[in-house]
């Protein structure tokens, strides 16, 4: 539909409204404060319909047409003011048609389609009631008196109360369906629909009051009040329906375009994949798991095993690669699958994020491999440490003992002197070995914690003093191990290369995990690309645990900062 078509529809709609209002002037029994709002209901719906049409020309078209249909049917009763008996009867017959269209608007929002059989039946029932009971009245009542919501003096057939009672029943059924839907719908759908539910309740209450009034044949004044309430409630429901249609039906192309922009690796405004998907699908509870081809299981973005059983309450959409291998599983609100519009959106979003998902999957898999390597390295260190302690160190102790015995029982002063020399050498060896063993793995880390384990690093004589400001908190073993090796390597580097007069170590818990900072007042100039692999190795070690390590800018000396996530 082009702009000209839309303008034409608007003009035609306004013409209908103007003609209807013109015909009614002076012919209705109600005061102006009822007539004026009542006359404007159709105009309002026309405006809302056109607004939705303009703003959502593709996805909002059905909804726009329905809103315009309400506008047009709203003015059909005004045909009763025609002098032509055929036109008059047409107006009488179609008096309640707008209520049926309104019911369709309500239950079809926000996409304009009736998705559920029960709701389809209900809407069909409203159409049937509106057309059949009024049709019977046209055929049976003679003389046929123009009706404006139940003039108390008019003579009516029994079809009139039948129509009112049926309308009341249908309103109640509609309310039951609304309650049922509200209870069954997941959070996302509730957010979308909550305004509509409230609007329905208001309209249902007012409408019921009107039908009851019609049955009881209340006075013109009372029915005028009820009519005014009805007009206001309708305007409110129309506005809500339009808002819901406009708010939820952002065009798929626009969402996908935004998603692609957010996932562009070269973009400065790049958004993490999970957040971008959650925004595109309007589901903050969205979960994302990657298929690890190596271990044949789903893993989280850090590479930790995450079996599908652990994602309750979610519908799962599996994204497949070109070779039909799974890439990832998106866990999302089941509501997305029940609505054709969201299904299309889901398909489009999945197609658009395929490459990014594949990259993220490889990242997660690499992360898992790196962490496995790191764990294996720590385990190897522990076992080397244990083997040296339980084997070589014990044997050296035995040798020291035997040497001591030999020396004590030796009578020859020359041999005694030699044995003393040998014993001193063996002791020096034992001490060196103790330092080596302690450097391989801090055996007291596990039971005494990081602060106690780092204490030994301060004991190196004739080196820069080491100031330890280490929180006595405990963290997961893998995090403590990594933190220990970061500090011991960085302190070793500072001692070897920085020519520092003091070295400070700070370890504390922050929002992002454990912050490890080693700073010195030495010559500075540390880089990841320099001689040796110390800092680069350290960065890899930290990255393997999902953390980051950087050389922080500093006026003097060097500051190494690592953040180790604990989750």
């Amino acid at each position: 539909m082009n702009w000209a078509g839309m303008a034409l529809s608007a003009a035609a709609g306004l013409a209908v409204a103007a003609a209807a209002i013109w015909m009614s002037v002076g012919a209705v029994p109600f005061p102006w404060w009822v007539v004026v709002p009542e006359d404007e209901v159709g105009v309002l719906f026309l405006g809302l319909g056109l607004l939705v049409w303009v703003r959502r020309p593709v996805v909002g078209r059905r909804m726009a047409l329905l809103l315009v249909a309400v506008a047009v049917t709203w003015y059909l009763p005004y045909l009763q003011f025609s002098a032509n008996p055929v036109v008059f009867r047409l107006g009488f017959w179609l008096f309640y048609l707008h209520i049926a269209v309104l019911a369709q608007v309500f239950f079809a929002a926000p996409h304009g389609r009736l998705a559920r059989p029960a709701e389809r039946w209900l809407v069909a029932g409203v159409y049937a009631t509106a057309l059949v009971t009024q049709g019977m009245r046209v055929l049976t009542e003679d003389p046929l008196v123009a009706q404006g919501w139940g003039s108390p003096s008019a003579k009516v057939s029994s079809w009139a109360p039948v129509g009112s009672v049926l309308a009341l029943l249908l309103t109640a059924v509609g309310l039951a369906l609304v309650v049922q839907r509200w209870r069954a719908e997941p959070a996302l759908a509730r957010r979308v629909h909550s305004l509509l539910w409230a609007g329905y309740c208001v309209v249902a209450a007012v409408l019921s009051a009107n039908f009851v009034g019609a049955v009881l044949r209340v006075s013109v004044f009372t029915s005028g009040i009820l009519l005014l309430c009805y007009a206001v409630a309708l305007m409110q429901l129309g506005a809500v329906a339009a808002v819901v249609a406009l708010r939820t039906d952002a065009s798929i192309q626009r969402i996908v375009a935004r998603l692609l922009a957010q996932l562009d690796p070269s973009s400065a405004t790049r958004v993490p994949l999970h957040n971008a998907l959650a925004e595109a699908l309007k589901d903050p509870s969205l979960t994302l798991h990657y298929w690890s081809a190596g271990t044949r299981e789903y893993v989280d973005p850090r590479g930790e095993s995450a079996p599908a059983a652990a994602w309750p309450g979610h519908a799962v959409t599996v994204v497949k690669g070109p070779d039909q291998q799974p890439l990832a599983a998106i866990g999302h609100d089941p509501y997305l699958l029940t609505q054709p519009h969201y299904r299309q959106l889901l398909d489009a979003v999945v197609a658009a994020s395929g490459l990014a998902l594949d990259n993220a999957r490889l990242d997660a898999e690499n992360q898992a491999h790196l962490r496995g390597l790191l764990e294996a390295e720590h385990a190897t260190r522990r076992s080397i440490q244990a083997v040296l302690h339980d084997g070589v160190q014990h044997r050296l102790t035995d040798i020291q003992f035997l040497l001591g015995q030999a020396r004590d029982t030796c009578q020859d002063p020359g041999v005694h002197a030699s044995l003393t020399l040998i014993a001193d050498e063996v002791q020096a060896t034992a001490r060196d070995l103790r330092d080596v063993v302690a450097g391989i793995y801090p055996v007291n880390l596990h039971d005494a914690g990081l602060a106690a384990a780092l204490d030994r690093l301060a004991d190196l004589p004739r080196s820069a003093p080491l100031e330890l400001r280490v929180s006595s908190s405990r963290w997961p073993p893998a995090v403590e191990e990594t933190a220990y090796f970061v500090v011991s390597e960085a302190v070793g580097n500072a001692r070897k290369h920085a020519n520092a007069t003091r070295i400070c170590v700070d370890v504390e818990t922050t929002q992002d995990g454990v912050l490890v900072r080693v700073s010195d007042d030495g010559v500075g100039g540390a880089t990841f690309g320099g001689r040796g692999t110390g800092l680069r190795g350290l960065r890899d070690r930290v990255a393997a645990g999902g953390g980051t390590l950087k050389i922080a800018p500093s006026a003097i000396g060097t500051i190494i900062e690592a953040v180790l996530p604990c989750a």
Partner: protein
Amino acid sequence: MRVIVAEDNFTRDAIADVLGGPPYGLDVIGRASTIADLLRLVDADPPDIVTLDLRMPRVDPRAKPELAGLDAARQIRSAHPGVAILVLSQFDYVPWVEEVVKLGMAVGYQLKDELRDLGRLAEVMRAVAAGEIRIDSTLVARLVSRPRLDGPLDRLTRREREVLGLMAEGLSNAGIAARLVIEQGSVEAHATEIYRKLGISHLGGEVNARVMAVLAFLRSGRTPGFAS
């Protein structure tokens, strides 16, 4: 002096055999190769002193050794407060030494290097069994020479540094006087001067409180009240 020796290797029998014979003449009443054995022996017949390794198998002598020695020491101390405890270890971790000192009097922590001079070991065992505290001198020397930011130990004289080291090893003023061959009164004067210069305050008369305070100072350069 009645001794139980707990080690999971050759060292156990070597110590037991040599210490049991002349010239040391200790009464070795039990040898344990697991934590469970040790606790059973101590419960059955509490000795004057036990020596134990920090890393031993818990129950099965063929199982991998575990770091269970500290737990065993705590259990013995609570069940038999009169049994002196001497830890013989390869680990030179001061935090573990502090854990041992926390048990109270009649405790010791020696590195296994000491085994090359059994005469000294026997002397340490006698002192600990008599209720004293003995910390390995190598460990204490390393703590004393630990590099420090403001060099608080530079304010001490050489003799005061010697006294501080012996205080950390657990010697009483009388013991320090005997070791340095000086008057006990001058040891007390040195000690007062050391406290003043280093700001080590609130020391009770208990030797282990003094050892803890000195160890804590040597470790962090601060008095225990200030340590984080």
